[in-house]
């Protein structure tokens, strides 16, 4: 189903749309306030963007440097060309360690690779330990936002879900009670876990260490209790030097939730005594995206989600309407690179308002890339006949002054003289909820000619 259809369904419940819009706008507002307290916010964005450009231009060298330094510190490095390879590597490590129970902190990459169903099919229990992720996991849904995975659910819905899965008593959506119950439930899972999986926010080439950011401390809890730590990272997660973290950490939390810093920004440099630490470096289509001139900078993304919170379409259509691992504006420029046909409606799910590009902490020109994807999609993917013919015809009309003058006059004539019920019929999508402008007899050009003579 196209984004437009999904969005229409979401809009059947206007109260819910308003609630969703306001919840995310609240986060966007918090971000504005937080960004405003940083002197030189725009300079910081410029720096972050420049560092990411440098990384993408020298990715091969940085990755090798990272690997060497990490290995020196006793970390095992694995390379995965695609999702399948990634999942197999994870499974092999778990098998070797006889690990049956796994706790996982937030990682969009493992979502992208569909790791959970892969492991579950092989008899391994995977528990998402981020509260939002756990909620959607219990609901058997994908996350609808990359930072706020359960933002589409009200606390009352969570209440019902917890009653069913965690045996809680009805609390009318009491957040205090529900989070306490989640905490008890997760604590048990942490204590029994054989291995901890995490994502990676930043991997430092200079040191071979990496940083994982969470607000709940759930990554740390998992890592410190389990014998094995497996961290999955996309190849673009590299930053050159440790000092650059000062730029990215300041931008990330403020852009994501309006916090000055994530509650836990945990640095991992080597395994603890007697434990194993693995990093899987994953490509899965990223080098291909790197090779696309117009779309390369989409790999700057640090997954803060600010473009989703600001996007007036995302806020009113919900993350699930995108049917992609990464929803919203950034997802709409990343996903077509993975599967153009499947995601071909996404670059059109935008008014090209440009808010995403201006909010982006690493200055990805998201709305310009949406425009560029549209040019490719109309060539490579079959478009609805009406749309294609109309627009192609319009191209010929607009290149011809006389033809344009004639058709303009006819259209105005019809708008003026046809009865309203015909104009606002089903054929006219515009007229479902909007009146058409009242037309006058002369257009501007006629008026101008008369005035001159």
């Amino acid at each position, binding site marked *: 189903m196209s*984004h*437009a259809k999904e*969005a*229409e369904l979401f*809009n059947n419940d*206007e109260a819910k*749309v308003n609630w969703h819009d306001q919840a995310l706008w609240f986060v966007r507002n918090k971000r*504005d306030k937080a960004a405003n307290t*940083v002197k030189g*916010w*725009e300079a910081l964005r410029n720096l972050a963007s420049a560092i990411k450009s440098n990384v993408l231009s020298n990715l091969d060298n940085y990755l090798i440097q990272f690997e060497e330094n990490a290995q020196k510190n006793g970390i095992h490095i694995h390379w995965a060309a695609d999702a399948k390879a990634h999942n197999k590597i994870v499974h092999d490590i778990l098998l070797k360690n006889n690990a049956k129970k796994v706790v996982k902190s937030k990682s969009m990459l493992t979502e992208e690779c569909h790791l959970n169903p892969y492991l579950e099919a092989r008899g391994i229990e995977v528990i998402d330990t981020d509260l939002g992720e756990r909620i959607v996991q219990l609901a058997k849904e994908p996350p609808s936002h990359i930072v706020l995975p359960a933002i589409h659910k009200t606390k009352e819905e969570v209440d019902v879900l917890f009653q069913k899965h965690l045996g809680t008593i009805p609390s009318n959506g009491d957040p205090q009670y529900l989070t306490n119950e989640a905490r008890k439930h997760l604590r048990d899972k942490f204590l029994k876990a054989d291995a901890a999986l995490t994502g990676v926010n930043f991997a430092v080439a200079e040191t071979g260490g990496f940083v994982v950011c969470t607000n709940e401390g759930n990554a740390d809890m998992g890592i410190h209790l389990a014998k094995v730590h497996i961290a999955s990272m996309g190849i673009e997660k590299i930053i050159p030097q440790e000092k650059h973290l000062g730029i990215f950490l300041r931008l990330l939390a403020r852009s994501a939730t309006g916090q000055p810093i994530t509650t836990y920004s945990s640095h991992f440099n080597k395994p603890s005594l007697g434990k194993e630490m693995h990093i899987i470096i994953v490509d899965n289509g990223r080098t291909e995206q790197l090779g696309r001139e117009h779309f390369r900078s989409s790999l700057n993304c640090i997954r803060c989600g600010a473009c989703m919170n*600001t996007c*007036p*379409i995302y806020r*009113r*259509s919900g993350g699930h309407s995108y049917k992609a691992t990464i929803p919203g504006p950034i997802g709409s420029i990343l996903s077509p690179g993975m599967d153009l046909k499947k995601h071909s409606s996404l*670059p*059109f*799910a*935008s*008014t*090209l*308002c*440009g*808010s995403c*590009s*201006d*909010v982006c902490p690493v200055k990805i020109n998201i709305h310009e890339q949406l*425009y560029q994807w*549209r*040019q*490719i999609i*109309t060539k490579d993917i079959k*478009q609805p006949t009406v*749309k294609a013919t109309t*627009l*192609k015809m*319009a*191209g010929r009309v*607009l*290149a*011809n*002054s*006389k033809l344009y003058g004639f058709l*303009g006059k006819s259209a105005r004539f019809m708008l003026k003289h046809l009865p309203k019920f015909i104009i606002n019929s089903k054929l006219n*999508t*515009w007229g*479902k*909820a*909007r*009146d*058409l*402008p009242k*037309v006058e007899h*002369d*257009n*501007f*050009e006629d*008026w*101008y000619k008369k005035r001159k003579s």
Partner: protein
Amino acid sequence: MKVGLFIPCYINQLYPKVGIATLELLEKLGVDVDYPIGQTCCGQPLGNSGYEEESKGACKLFIENFKNYDYIVCPSGSCVYHVKKHFDILEQTDDVINVRSNIYELTQFIFQILVKTNVGASFPYKVGIHKSCHGLRGLRLGSCSERMDAPYSIEENLLKEVKGIQLKTLNRVDECCGFGGTFSIFEEAISVKMGKDRIQDHLNSDVEVITGTDQSCLMHLEGLINRNNQPLRVMHIAEILNSTL
């Protein structure tokens, strides 16, 4: 100084009064304005829909029509932005380069080239500004809420000087109205919802007249307002700046 007036296709056909207000305003300000007959469209509806290739004929015609002017002025930020940003699909001849660098949105031209803020208008109403996205974030007619730059707004600079006007502040100062060209048709549900939300913000802010630099956004809002019989009027900024009520 010879100025070519570019009246976007939908203004020409559907809102001639906006074109008239623009022309009269420029003439009032002592500008030598000429409207090249036979102009059509900048090609934006095609480009934004993914049919940039098919728009080349319209773009070339545009250059032909406007290549001999010192400045090109247009009452639409969106169309100006398209010429500036997307005419890179044409071979960059001197004519193309000149047209792209000499084209201005109306308020931008008054403020930056004529260096005027007071155009002698009066308009005793409560006005809310709809800051259209392509003017705001494309042409940078003002600071946008996402960026932490020093605040400014060309539209406000001009409107503040209008006698009797009361400018109202909105809750969301620069959210998109949901028009988006063919988006308004192909994503109808969201487009309508976005427009309704913008209108409600103006109503909540005690606005009587919504204005802006892009008639396309205003057409979308007006369509909703008229359908729902809401107590709001919609006027292009040229109409207010040309007003002597």
